[in-house]
């Protein structure tokens, strides 16, 4: 269906169902329970899950297929954000032109950087992309201030022209981003007993675009073009002596993944119309590399899983501070309670990077194929135990 084989289609369907039901799935704990802090079903975080999912899906088209490790993809994300905010300032608060412009500008920018960087491969390519991204970051901070508003970051103001919209609303505030009138920040809250589920317009726009990106990524993976990209990774020499020019293939993959990053950047700005230079910093480029490798580079679903995982850690784990820990261990004698809090303290709250780092090391050492490989191994265990259920378990583990 939709030009996909059965297996890929069911994977797409599973991702679609997960994305649509995310407000329920991510809020499993009642709002007033002690576990409520593990709920991730609030609009801001759900938006981040899918936006960084798009970013990682795009990065995976380059890294997972061709093996070219770019350390500068955040530059395209940042360029996308700036373009979108400029569209909001100059044209209108509708997100569609903003998103379109961010994809186009990021595509052109990646064409330029890719054209130069792809003259080298391996570590030199990585260093070139890193250099370009850091250059963009520093320029955005300094000489490009008229375009980027420097350290403050680009924001909307009350005297923006907004040709197709209004500079300020009737009550004198800055208008909000919308999709043909549908406000992005609008959230419908559904209260079921002690649970509360939040349905946010912005999230659903991002989710639909994520599904579209995911669908296109599957098509690319299964196309002759995708096969050529895998051939580049596998053996560049044979590629050349088979009469194929690897450069335009790699450049096309680079531009496509740059456009995905631009889309992610445009969506970030559409959800919250401001753009800062820190979005282009090398740590942001490194983050998408982590997401892809953690989830499973070269697999279809891996990057989305990795993005979700890292964003969950960043937003949920980091909130567990000492007082929360004390309340967890309060049933124990005082000495033991303090000891446990001291032991756990470095791994949570501000120390969430440590847990993530350890986890990343474990995954890279023991599961080189990322979380997807972990899922496959678990599925294989189940299959060995219950051979009758083999069909079920293959479906529940997205292999690629």
């Amino acid at each position, binding site marked *: 269906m939709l030009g996909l084989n059965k297996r890929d289609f069911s994977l797409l369907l599973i991702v679609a169902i997960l994305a649509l039901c995310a407000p329920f799935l991510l809020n499993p704990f009642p709002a007033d329970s002690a576990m409520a802090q593990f709920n991730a079903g609030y609009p801001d975080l759900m938006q981040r899950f899918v936006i960084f999912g798009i970013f990682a899906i795009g990065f995976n088209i380059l890294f997972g297929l061709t093996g070219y490790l770019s350390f500068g993809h955040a530059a395209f994300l940042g360029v996308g954000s700036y373009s979108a905010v400029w569209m909001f300032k100059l044209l209108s608060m509708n997100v569609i032109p903003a998103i379109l412009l961010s994809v186009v500008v990021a595509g052109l920018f990646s064409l330029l950087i890719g054209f130069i960087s792809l003259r080298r491969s391996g570590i030199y390519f990585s260093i070139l992309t890193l250099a370009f991204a850091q250059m963009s970051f520093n320029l955005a901070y300094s000489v490009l201030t008229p375009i980027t508003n420097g350290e403050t970051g680009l924001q909307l103001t009350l005297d923006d022209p907004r040709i197709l919209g209004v500079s300020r609303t009737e009550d004198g505030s800055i208008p909000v981003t919308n999709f043909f009138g549908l406000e992005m920040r609008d959230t419908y809250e559904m209260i079921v007993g002690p649970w509360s589920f939040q349905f946010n317009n912005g999230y659903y726009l991002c989710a639909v675009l994520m599904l579209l990106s995911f669908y296109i990524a599957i098509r690319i993976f299964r196309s*002759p073009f995708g096969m050529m990209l895998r*051939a580049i990774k596998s053996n560049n020499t044979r590629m050349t002596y088979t*009469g194929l*020019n690897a450069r335009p293939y790699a450049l096309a993959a680079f531009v496509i993944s740059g456009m995905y990053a631009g889309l992610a950047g445009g969506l970030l700005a559409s959800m919250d119309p401001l753009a800062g230079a820190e979005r282009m910093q090398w740590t942001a480029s490194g983050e998408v590399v982590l997401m892809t490798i953690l989830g499973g580079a070269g697999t279809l679903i891996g990057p989305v899983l990795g993005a979700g995982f890292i964003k969950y850690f960043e937003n949920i784990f980091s909130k567990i501070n000492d007082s929360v820990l004390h309340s967890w261990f309060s049933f124990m004698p005082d000495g033991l309670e303090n000891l446990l809090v001291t032991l756990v303290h470095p791994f949570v709250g501000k120390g969430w990077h440590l847990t993530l780092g350890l986890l990343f090391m474990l995954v890279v050492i023991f599961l080189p194929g990322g979380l997807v490989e972990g899922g496959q191994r678990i599925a294989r265990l189940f299959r060995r135990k219950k051979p009758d259920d083999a069909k079920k378990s293959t479906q529940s583990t997205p292999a690629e």
Partner: protein
Amino acid sequence: MGILEVKNVNKRFGGLQALGDVNLSVAENTVHAIIGPNGAGKSTLLNCLIGKLIPDTGSVMFQGQSVLGRKPYEINQMGISRVFQTPEIFGDLTVLENMMIPIFAKRDGVFRMHALESSHNENEIIDQAEAMLEDLNLQDQRHMHSASMSRGNKRRLEIGMCLAQTPKLLLLDEPTAGMARADTNNTIDLLKQIKDERDITIAIIEHDMHVVFSLAERITVLAQGSPLVEDTPENIKGHPKVREAYLGETAA
């Protein structure tokens, strides 16, 4: 006039004269072997033919067109395919995909953006690849990752991938290096079969005289970067200059 004409080719690496005034003419639809002791310049010559190296002076003409200054993939598209000393195949891809890629390259040229088509719908390409694998006796392994095949089968696959492009000239760089006797004989049989069934010229570099004398119709002996003699296999066998080059002066 041969299909491949090499004239006065010189190549220096620093102080080393790797090739000195090499002249070579390969006639169409023959098997031409280039032999010589280690360091005679055989591989350097081959690299000059496929665009990996550019000779300092001289000319290399293929079907009346110069290959010098062209990119390796352009030279390949002109009709020259190369088999490497260690099989160069796409190890991460399945055997069938390995075979599909050269057929795509033949149909679509050096680059084509077919990102939204499905490779499962390319029935024509798949059929051709399957037929080629059948010819090579590799059809049982078609869904296997090619990296996990045996050395001999990797070589068969590589030769098959080159043939899938229906080249006019096939260059083989020590195709049986590091192979067991049985694999070597298999490869010889395969090459004989190719020679008989196809309209193809083969140039082969080889150390193993068993291989050379089973296949070659014409032999060029290279020593210290220059061609020593060129003749039929029968005449080469007893040629004093060849013995000298291989065994040293005292044996002559």
